[in-house]
């Protein structure tokens, strides 16, 4: 297979991902994409051209050695493939599922110029799942390959989302003890409270976290950064460095009348109830949502799609998505939009909310929408939505979910004197190292950039971790790349 000429490889079609049928999955919380079989993975891996200068790798925020792991898959060396992934990526099973590959590795794949790119994300997921399924026991009990060589050092990570987990994983691999402080009761940050089970099963996150515990990382759930413990206190109590990876968790609302009626949720609340609180199993679990007939979701990003698809699965008769612009401008991944439409999502483009109207009990009953049209491009480069004066309509709805973005949670900045922030509360950090205005305090992920992707947060966590480790341990000798050191941990 590997001897096949490039021109022929380009003609081999991309291997489709098996999925649950739309009508079935729209009513359950099991994962939509079912994963490749070993045979599918081998066929898809064989499409890779093994470029000498891989563009895909440049397209990846953590520069995964993509041709390297795919080569191992072609050879049937699944453990080796996973080891290559883990050199730069602490959470491959997560990234294989939720990265926007079409804008990153797959977007840069040469095969994509004339045909379809190699399905890198699906292969990454296959390699990670295969490894975790086969050697979960070994991962847990085999003991870490990297001894905690430096018990005179310690680093704190605040938050346990993608950036903090990556930072912690890298530092642990270099022998530095790490404590991760998480405000919620479950570790994983947005991977646990935000991304639904049907896109990222929580068991996958738990396995990745267990693998990190096996490396010696200590997790302290129910510890709120800025409340239970502050950054200055961590430094005073002997932490050599602190990494702030708390995400951008403050929900934005629409600012229209009636928004505090019962039945109007932030996407954060709705998704946290369902994902973290497992409300989809209520009343077997205790956290409730309530059933709704007609749900209207506001927004056009991935979170809006997650909320809409969740509402369908919870039994809504109809779920509509109202967006101020057109489908073309929606910031969500095309795959998410495609999946949502297959499952029956009703899309109300060029509509903006004007008012929520309640019944006599203060519960949402109707929503007034304003028709919009596209005007001149705005600062975002997208055409700005302009109201069509006098053109409004009122629709019946008993639930609305607001998914129009998030802001910076101020708990850390309020309790960390000297921490420089931008006007909107995001933390100022050196782009190369992640260091903030306070020496030895680093930050990365959404609390620095504003809401972005899992993988870009991981990239920031990794850069900061490298800067921290180099400062505490001295830089790695030139002939040994940090990737290879990190690799030791992956063999654990």
């Amino acid at each position, binding site marked *: 297979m590997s001897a096949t000429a490039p021109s022929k490889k380009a003609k081999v079609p991309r291997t489709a991902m098996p999925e649950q049928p739309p009508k079935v999955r729209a009513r359950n919380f099991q994962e939509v994409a079912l994963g490749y079989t070993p045979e599918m993975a081998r066929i898809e891996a064989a499409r890779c051209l093994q470029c000498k200068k891989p563009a895909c790798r440049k397209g990846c925020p953590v520069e995964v050695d993509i041709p390297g792991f795919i080569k191992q898959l072609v050879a049937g060396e699944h453990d080796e493939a996973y080891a290559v992934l883990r050199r730069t990526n602490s959470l491959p099973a997560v990234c294989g599922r939720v990265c926007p590959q079409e804008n990153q590795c797959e977007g840069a794949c040469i095969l994509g110029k004339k045909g379809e790119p190699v399905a890198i994300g699906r292969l990454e997921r296959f390699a990670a799942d295969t490894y975790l399924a086969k050697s979960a026991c070994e991962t847990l009990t085999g003991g870490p390959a990297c001894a905690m060589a430096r018990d005179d050092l310690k680093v704190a990570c605040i938050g346990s989302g993608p950036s903090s987990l990556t930072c912690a994983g890298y530092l642990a691999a270099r022998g530095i003890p790490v404590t991760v402080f998480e405000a919620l009761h479950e570790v994983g940050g947005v991977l646990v409270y935000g991304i639904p089970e049907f896109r990222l099963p929580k068991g996958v996150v738990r396995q990745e976290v267990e693998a990190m515990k096996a490396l010696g990382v200590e997790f302290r759930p129910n510890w709120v950064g800025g409340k239970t*413990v502050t950054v200055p206190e961590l430094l005073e109590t002997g932490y050599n460095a602190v990494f702030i990876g708390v995400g951008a968790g403050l929900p934005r609302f629409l600012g229209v009348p009636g928004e505090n009626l019962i039945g109007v949720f932030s996407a954060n609340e709705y998704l946290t109830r369902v994902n973290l609180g497992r409300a989809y199993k209520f009343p077997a679990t205790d956290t409730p949502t309530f059933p709704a007939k007609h749900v209207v979701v506001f927004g056009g990003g991935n979170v809006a799609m997650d909320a809409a698809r969740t509402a369908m699965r919870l039994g809504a008769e109809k779920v509509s998505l109202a967006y101020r612009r057109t489908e073309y401008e929606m910031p969500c991944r095309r795959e998410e939009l495609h999946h949502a439409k297959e499952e029956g999502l009703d899309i109300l483009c060029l509509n903006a909310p004007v008012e929520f109207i309640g019944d006599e009990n*203060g519960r949402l009953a109707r929503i007034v929408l304003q028709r919009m049209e596209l005007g001149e491009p705005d600062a975002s480069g997208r055409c700005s939505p302009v109201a069509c004066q006098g053109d409004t309509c009122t629709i019946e709805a008993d639930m609305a979910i607001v998914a129009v973005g998030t802001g910076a949670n101020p708990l850390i900045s309020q309790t960390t004197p000297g921490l420089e922030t931008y006007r909107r509360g995001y933390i100022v950090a050196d782009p190369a190292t992640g260091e903030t205005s306070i020496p030895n305090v680093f930050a990365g992920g959404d609390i620095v950039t504003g809401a972005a992707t899992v993988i870009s947060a991981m990239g920031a966590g990794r850069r900061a971790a490298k800067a921290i480790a180099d400062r505490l341990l001295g830089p790695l000798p030139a002939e040994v790349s940090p990737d290879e050191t990190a690799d030791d941990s992956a063999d654990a």
Partner: protein
Amino acid sequence: MPSRILRKRKLIPGATSELVISAPHIAAKAKPGNFVILRVWEDGERIPLTIADADPDAGTITLVYLVMGKTTAHLETLDAGDDILDLCGPLGKATEIHKLDGPVICVGGGTGIAAMHHIAKGHHMAGNQVVTIIGARCEDLLLFHDELCSFCPEVLVATNDGSCGRQGLVTDLLVERLENDKTVAEVVAIGPVPMMRAVAEATKPFGVKTTVSLNSIMVDGIGMCGACRVSVGGQTRFACVDGPEFDGHAVDFTELAARLTAFKDQERLSYEEFKKSHVCNCSK
């Protein structure tokens, strides 16, 4: 990291209990006005409870709860020696306590008396003259009377049936006091929404600063979800991080009361299911 219950006291059998819990990291920082979020079992709901007392030296916090739904009923099945699965805090802004020119009147109703106790104590420690007014339906349902009397020289009591103190409402005592004492610097009220609303309405004509502590529905308790949002002076605020204490004269109590009923059907279902599967030992 579960937190051990060291002592349990049944204040009103079957309805209200007090737990003293080992939580040194929370006790070290807990200030009057702070709350915790707890979860009792692995598929349990996160609920907020105001911290009724904290002892940093002993490393303990005290919680008082009213059994009103599944989570509190489940909590009531625990005893000294048992663990609370998840305990997170201290959350929320602490009460603003500074030296006042005149007396501060702390009003508490029902289970809210326990939370008010912590604030009254805070004012007392700050050297303020504290007057407390507490109310309940009858004497047997009156909480923290002795604890308040231990440091507060003036504890006024109102009961609906007159079995203790004055027959009537806490607001009757409050208005009387405000009419006779023009030096009152601040009124703090914690209790059921109708009581806090009545207190805010009663103090308004006197122009006395009135602080209320709001018990909205919360999920994360750290500003992430907005479930606890309340309208204060026409602006949306989050009770968990902007509060839980707000200017009582600016709070939209009608909206607050409505929002507290958001999940009432689900709460009832959950509670009924629990009662079916658990033998109640709360009145033992």
